């Protein structure tokens, strides 16, 4: 759930400039596979793995921004293409296998590298907070990033300009803003946040699992869009996104506790999302024809 929230915060940045990022889920899983590959196959330490993941986030964000701003692709299509590209790319180095210590490589050798203990701690350590072992690292990271992006969007001139770009790019440009740069930055933020999510995912699983992370995109997009409706803001905002992520998490947890079958969960999430969007767009007077 914390990882969903981190991805959702990234999407929020692109929503603020009037864009959208569908590639976050696959950026996260690509980062996860890259972390595993760097440590298990290349036998590097945790720092290198983290750096490689963040680099992937930055590069994907730059490419997304470039495609949208300079190649004039619609945001949904550009990031959809990037999503498919990454889903395929992350499977190439291992010919479609998951990465774990002791796996057999395509050339017959055996990968002997291990996940560093300090890397695994990112996924398994819990901080004491009133109760022993209450807060997992991922939740702390989520809280820190949420505070950071909330402060950035609400209280800095860069955040204010990003909202201006999203609301009326022409007016923002005539007010002297480098609109293209702001848009690209939004996708870089989104990419980096997604790759941080990927690092935490890898640390929790302790392997590079080809099949994990399927729900990341849906859940985090739902969280960000539900965030629109929080407090009647009717605009993308970091606080709403965090609440949205919490809401989606609690909803899933509750469904599990009520013994709702797993296969009904996506349906319920989708329904909640649609209702939230109705509240945001149809019932707010913001909709300009």
């Amino acid at each position, binding site marked *: 759930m914390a990882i969903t929230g981190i991805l959702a915060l990234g999407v929020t940045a692109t929503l603020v400039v009037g864009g959208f990022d569908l590639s976050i889920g696959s950026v996260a899983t690509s980062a996860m596979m890259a972390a595993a590959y760097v440590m298990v196959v290349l036998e590097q330490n945790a720092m290198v793995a983290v750096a490689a993941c963040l680099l992937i986030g930055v590069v994907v964000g730059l490419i997304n921004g470039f495609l949208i701003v300079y190649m004039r692709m619609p945001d949904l299509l550009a990031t959809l293409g990037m999503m498919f590209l990454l889903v395929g790319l992350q499977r190439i180095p291992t010919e479609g296998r998951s990465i774990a210590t002791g796996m057999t490589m395509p050339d017959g050798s055996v990968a002997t590298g291990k996940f560093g203990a300090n890397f695994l701690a990112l996924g398994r350590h819990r901080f004491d907070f009133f109760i022993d072992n209450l807060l997992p690292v991922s939740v702390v990271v989520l809280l820190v990033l949420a505070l950071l992006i909330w402060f950035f969007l609400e*209280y*800095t*001139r*860069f955040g*204010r*300009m990003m*909202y*201006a770009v*999203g*609301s*009326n790019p*022409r*007016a*923002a*440009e*005539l*007010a*002297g*803003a*480098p609109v293209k740069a702001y848009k690209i930055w939004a996708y870089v933020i989104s990419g980096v946040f997604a790759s941080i999510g990927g690092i935490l995912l890898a640390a929790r699983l302790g392997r590079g699992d080809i099949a994990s992370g399927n729900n990341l995109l849906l859940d985090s997009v739902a969280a960000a869009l539900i965030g629109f409706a929080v407090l009647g803001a009717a*605009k993308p905002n970091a606080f709403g996104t965090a609440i949205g992520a919490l809401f989606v998490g609690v909803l899933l947890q509750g469904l599990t506790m009520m013994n709702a079958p797993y296969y009904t969960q996506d349906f319920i999430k989708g329904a909640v999302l649609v209702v939230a969007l109705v509240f945001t767009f149809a019932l707010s*007077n*913001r909709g*300009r024809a």
Partner: protein
Amino acid sequence: MVENAVFRVEGLRKSFGRIEVLGGVSLDLHAGEVTVLMGANGAGKSTLVKIISGVYARDGGAMQLGGKDFAPATPAEAIRSGVVTVHQNINDGVVADLDVATNLTLDRLSGSGAPAFFNPRRVRREAKIVADRMGLAIDLRSRINDLSLADRQMVAIARAMAHEPKVLILDEPTSSLSSAEATRLFAVIDRLRGHGVAILYISHRMSDIRRLADRIVSMRDGKISGVFEDKPLDYEGAVNAMLGRRIHLDRIVVNEAAKTVLAVNALRIAEGARPISLTLGAGEVVAVTGLVGVGKTALAETLFGTRAPLSGTMVLNGRRYAPASPGEAIAAGVFLVAKDRGDNGIVQDFNIYENISLPFLKRLSGLGVLKRNVERATARRQIGELGIVCRTERDEMGTLSGGNQQKVMVARWMSQPASLFILDEPFQGVDISARRDIATKLRASSSGRATLIFVTELDEALETADRILVMSEHTIVGEHRNADIDMDRLLAEVAGQPLRGAA
């Protein structure tokens, strides 16, 4: 003349909300005659056209076509009755992904009695008949996307002519055509005139009007302000009737300029236009006037860095000035209140103070963190200065009237000192009292900077400026000190010279 009018409009009225757009318009169109309709933005031309073509319902008055009452409820009904309109936006008249033949016969594909199956050969046969009648020499199989603007325009008109209209309305058909392309259009219009079609031609381009007009009707503030049908046509009179001049002007005390702020030297802003040279001094308010489409906005954009000049140099406060972006212009102290505030100025999701501070966030923040109290104090000061009617500086923009929204835009750019303050059509969509407030404020605060206002309406120039420059065909053709103006010369300059290969 009145007896043989094909189409008559009498006492047409239309209001939107409390605003009366048409206040009793009467108009006759005669067979085989081109009637040119002139009017500034907001005079009510498009509303009139939309009522005639069945888009809007009228509030009062009568329309007659061939002696019978004419009250179309939908555009389709107007077309079936023989009143066909070609709208300004060419791409509204054609479907870009289909070929010419399909476009020409598009209207026969729908409606009752249309065959359910699409027969390409029959379509091409019918399209050929339509094209031949128009003298249209375009390959019927080519796709609209591959055609030039002029060819698309021809197809749109030919499509309209397929209905064999009695009345044809052309709304600024040459606004995106080159002069060679326009010449082709004129040939087609001559042909239609020969066929006895009554044509209503709406345009701002004097060269078009001189070439085509049999009669000129001027509109102003929702009323017909002049009809000119005696040959030779009185073009200056028509322009005067359209731009108007109220006698009870608030006379202004003309300021003389102090030191030079901006010097523009041999600036060319359009292909084939003569270069522009001008100087603006500190403390003076200069208005640039001219009809729509003569390059006023292009000049404003060039000064503000959103458009690069073809050649020429600018010097601002003694330093070379060549802005590559609005950001650079703002840093140099050149501010622009852009026209069409809804598209180019207002950030709808922001409240008043956020809109006012937008261009100056760097100055209103420390280490990137916004100083909201300074922002809000600035906004409160500006709200007081310009008399913006609102509850607090945190009101949403949507709650303000048009005049107050425009005041916020002016307040935005007056919140920091400028070297050169440019306003492009600042009085557009603004009520008379807000207009007076803005003009008074502009003059009162003008010392220390050069102020440049681009306006189409002469009244606005006369009410606000120390000096008036006249633009025509992308260059400046006249200059007047706003003290003892030779109105005849001014109007002649606005009306331009007869066809000189206009661009």
